[in-house]
């Protein structure tokens, strides 16, 4: 299974090689979607893939290491009333979650493919894209 989580670190936890542990000890595939670290700690958005049991154990491990963990329900959301289907977003979306369907002329948004990187947010002229973390 796959799940996306938001991690919040205290400055102490920043020094802990947690992704290494998730990979080696819990046999998870870890895809880092976003990572920001500054003097007051850090935030990371991960996509974890593996057995359900391993994911659960991995998340327990993160919590025991002082890392705040919460699941992402929705990453990027599109306001369908605001979207004009121009297609500005399609060439900057790194995972091709946004694609122009020439048959319908509409931009389709595949939320499964979206990794919540957010590059589409400030590129959208009618401001139809919003990121919820």
């Amino acid at each position, binding site marked *: 299974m796959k799940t996306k989580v938001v991690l919040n670190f205290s400055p102490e936890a920043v020094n802990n090689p947690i992704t290494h542990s998730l990979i080696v000890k819990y046999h998870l595939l870890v895809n880092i979607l976003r990572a920001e670290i500054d003097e007051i700690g850090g935030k990371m958005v991960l996509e974890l893939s593996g057995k359900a049991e391993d994911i659960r154990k991995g998340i327990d491990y993160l919590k025991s290491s002082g890392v705040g963990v919460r699941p992402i329900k929705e990453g990027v959301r599109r306001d369908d009333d605001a979207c*004009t*289907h*121009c*297609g*500005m*977003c*399609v*060439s*900057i979306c790194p995972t091709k979650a946004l694609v*122009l369907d*020439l048959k*319908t*002329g*509409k931009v389709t948004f595949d939320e499964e493919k979206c990794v919540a990187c957010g*590059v589409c947010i*400030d*590129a959208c*002229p*009618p*401001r139809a894209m919003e990121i919820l973390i």
Partner: protein
Amino acid sequence: MAGGDVVVMTAEEFKEHVRANGIRKAAKEVDVVTTGTFGAMCSSGAYFNFGHADPPIKMSKVWLDGIPAYAGLAAVDAYLGATELDESNNMLHGGAHVIEDLVRGKAVRLRATALGTDCYPRKDIDTYISLKTVNQAVLFNVRNCYQNYAVATNSSSRTLYTYMGKLLPELGNATFSSAGEVSPLLNDPYYRSIGIGTRIFLGGAQGFVVWEGTQFNPGVPRTPDGVPKRPAGSIAVIGDLKQMSPEWIKGLTFTRYGASLGVGIGVPIPILDEEMAKSCAVTNNQIVTAVFDYSQPTRSRNVLREVTYAELRSGEIEVKGKKVPTSSLSSLYKARQISQILKNQIVKGEFALDRPVQNFSLDRVFRPLDVRSEREAM
């Protein structure tokens, strides 16, 4: 032509019809082809007459929801430009958004100041207006509906934020803004049916072409069929804002560039003869434009390559040996909707076609602005 039994096709339907039946037959069978485009059209704006206050005021500075409007037109008229910005909010909100709010039926705050005269003693006013309260609200765009436009890319090492959208570094993407084969002026390359007085679909209402668009530049290189390979013609358009709809008039934000107005325009093209049919049969693989590197800070950028709209629409073009994903800035979806609406209106007799009162001059040239002396300018 006033409705009844006219045969009308959208531009896409007509091209398909020509493919199946040939030009000659199509020219005989079809009376009108409808074209459409919906995209960011920066050189847009609206003028208003607010009515007179008591005591009256000759407004010299005017703000609509904080966006400055030009009021040097005597007492209570002002022109709000789409790209005018409220500079205090990071270029996110501009005249275009105020125009959309008005079209949505919202009330907008009007503030004005004046010097005060014997005939107009009042020195300031702070009130609200809407499309219901003003006398005139007229969309008047000096340059819309460009006949072809450049493709923008970026070879530099940082992201560029431009009026052509977000351009990723190292040729990370390329953006284009023409609707290609469905765009009005690309179906009438020599402006035979589109001229002064042409009735058009404008922002959901019926409007008119009032003049050539500014920067009108018909002398650019053309394909053997006469289709311009660079930005060429454009149109100045006018229409009643009170009759427009937010579906076709939309405030847009280009990050770190500012505001622009999304405008929907549709133009019917009467198939006068075989030549006109041939013009309207043009397809994306026959329409060429040039790719420019927007990291070059000059008005005369080098052409990186020429591409067709078929290539651009495929989602990827090759530039300097690299596969570059492409994005359109104009909505094919809305362009198609406009062509369809226009077709229905013509068929029902709700949209009359007129010949232009006067055609555009093909002799116009597009001059640059140089820093020159008074003598050199004369």
